[in-house]
């Protein structure tokens, strides 16, 4: 009804028509309904994809993730998208990461390390910040990388014009490729910043604060272009984001309980063996053997059957 009223109002006078801009030109929800936003790179988390208008991370745009707790699963949040991009043989550029990326871990997450390039890994301070921004802009202007991940020092303050420049470079990436060769999906920029930047303005299409505890990951959405902020807090299950880590931790906890209290249910051991690696498969096989030796109680396992499990598992010995 409001839309009809304002349309009549603007039609009533030419001056108003020139100076009042309707929602279609502002890229608001109504505009999004009128024209479908470009499809993004699926984040791999259904809750997040359902919330975002692009059904994933926004393409050709900057996304800001602001946190003061680096190393709490924020990289795992990006890994499904990174894996999808490397499967499409699109390079990924990580600039200014606090530590060096570990190839075997990337491989475990389905990311082909051959397509991952790092610049200034493990920087000593913010001295590299200027160079990192330059490298980011250069990479975005080529339009080649599928994803550019930039880490800014937590206490760094970036001027709005710098952010604007990055964002424009990001938006121009698609057209750059279109001129010279075959069309390629756009480059997206993920910018990790300190939580202190949440109060600062930014041209990023998607901005959220990141917080994590042992169970959940909470994304406080500060800005999402094309969507009204009716649901500013998205909660993800951390065990789903870091599934392998939490699977191993869960299995280890079961194993601890088993050794601590002497007995446990066989189904738990089997479940644990499905969560973790071959070590627990060995335990399960030993438990099965023990069960065969004690047929009177088929569902119980004594501590004696797993004697010697305290000894660390030797992975490689030469």
């Amino acid at each position: 009804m409001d839309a009809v009223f304002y349309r009549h109002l603007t039609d009533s006078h030419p001056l108003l028509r020139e100076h009042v801009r309707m929602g279609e030109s502002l890229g608001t929800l109504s505009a999004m309904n009128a024209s479908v936003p470009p499809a993004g790179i699926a984040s791999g988390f259904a809750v997040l994809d359902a919330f975002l208008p692009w059904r994933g991370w926004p393409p050709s745009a900057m996304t800001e993730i602001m946190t003061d707790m680096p190393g709490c699963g924020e990289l795992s949040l990006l890994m499904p998208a990174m894996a999808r991009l490397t499967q499409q043989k699109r390079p990924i550029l990580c600039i200014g990461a606090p530590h060096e990326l570990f190839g075997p871990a990337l491989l475990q997450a389905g990311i082909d390390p051959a397509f991952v390039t790092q610049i200034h890994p493990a920087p000593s301070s913010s001295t590299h910040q200027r160079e990192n921004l330059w490298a980011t802009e250069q990479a975005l202007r080529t339009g080649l990388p599928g994803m550019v991940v930039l880490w800014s020092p937590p206490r760094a303050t970036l001027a709005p014009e710098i952010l604007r420049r990055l964002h424009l470079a990001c938006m121009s990436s698609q057209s750059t490729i279109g001129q010279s060769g075959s069309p390629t999906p756009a480059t997206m920029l993920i910018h990790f910043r300190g939580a202190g930047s949440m109060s600062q303005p930014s041209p990023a299409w998607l901005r959220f604060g990141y917080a994590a505890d042992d169970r959940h990951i909470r994304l406080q959405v500060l800005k999402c272009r094309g969507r009204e902020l009716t649901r500013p807090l998205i909660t993800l299950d951390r065990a789903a984001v870091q599934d392998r880590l939490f699977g191993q931790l869960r299995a280890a906890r079961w194993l601890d309980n088993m050794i601590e209290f002497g007995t446990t249910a066989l189904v738990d051991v089997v479940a644990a063996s499905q969560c973790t690696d071959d070590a627990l498969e060995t335990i399960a096989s030993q438990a099965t053997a023990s069960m065969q030796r004690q047929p009177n109680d088929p569902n119980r396992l004594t501590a004696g059957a797993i004697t010697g499990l305290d000894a660390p598992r030797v992975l490689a010995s030469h």
Partner: protein
Amino acid sequence: MWLALYVPGLPLQAFSRELARSAPVVVFDRFGRRDVVIARNRVAAALGIKLHCTLAEAHALSAALIALPRAAERERATLHRLADALATLTPNIHVSADFGLLLDVAASLTLHGGAEALLQHAIKRIEAHPLRVHCVLAPTARGARWLATAHRQLCVPGRIDEWLDDLPLACMDIPRSLIAELRELNLHHLAAVRRLDPAELNQRFGVELTNALDQAYGVVTESLCFRDASPRFHEYVEFLDLAREQAHWWPGAVILLRQLHEFLRLHVRHARALQLKFSNGQQQSTELTLVSAHGSHHVNEWLRLLEVRLERQPITHELSRIDLVCTELDHAEVHEFDFFDHGKTHQLIWQSLLDLMSSRLGQAHIVIRPRYPHNAVPESQSMADTVRAVASDAYHASTSALRPPWLVDPPRPLNATALQRLRHAFNRRQPERIVFAWNGCYGDTSAVCRDYYIAAADHHSYWWIFRDRRTDRWFLHGIFA
């Protein structure tokens, strides 16, 4: 057939031609304790300065005399530049430091339409260089060489005897003392020497003279060593005034890179690295190395690399000369050449971007793909697993042990306080033990035995920590980010 290219006054021609025109200039070299004039220009000759006179005598004849020390490197570079230009005629080029070039063109005659046409081709190519060169085409190498010292341009397709007989003895490349002895015997031309009995000549002057004559007249064949055909680019520009700002010397760098572009195109090569030396005489110099990992031939690409490198490492001193050396050249296919810098593939754009970043940020700051540090044994094991899995195409992530996405390299020691802050280690009862006990591959530090744990740390992060069983110390080695 041999094409002899004689560069008269090479020590002088190696310097700027403009300089040699404007003032009396001599080039001197040191013989014993005396500086002797070995080349002079026309202005100096008009003033009465003669070859082989001392430098002091030359200065006495002209107060405005410019005396330059001989630059053997320049002479060599000049000859090699000339040889590069003539490499399209034949690959067999002999470089003689005191003469010029000798080209074995016997196999190229038909291709170029005969001796006369080949000579004209050579002259056309030489004209592109600011050099005065005598060109003689003759059946023997030594004969062509002698004729070139007396004739500016000559083609002798058939009998060489008739041309050589009339030559004065000074054209021969034999010791000056020997020529003087022959003149004392009233022998002034080669024909006169040839009329003498060779046995008597050998007895009196040694075999050197008769050997030279036999080779020149084609009685015996002469063998010459040819220059290495592998191309190497070395060019320079010099400034008459000291260039202070980048805007002043930048055109010189552009010219050099354009020359490199032409050179690479001529030789169908890619350049992987080039060295630029910005110098101010002997006082100051700055060397820059530009690297293109994929190999590039295009001038614009090198200019971009140079620009970003100069932003990071500007030249802070004055310049009088810029040298450009390029030794790492790869073979390229003609169809790979993109003369207009268009139609680049995505792969090439990506590699150019990496080159650009390497040039500005430095190679050490770019990790093209996640590396596996040699000092971290678990990573080596993981790498081995990965390689094995990729090779067998049967890799399954769940079969390998869990690894953190962030690697703390080198491992950070954890003190007692840090250990207390770790709330608890979840898998304390089942650590992952990684043992490497061989020597040689990783040096003495290879004998390690570590128990790895996943520990919950502050701010709900999870760390990959290990206990070194030999020293009983704890380290942080990764973060499950």
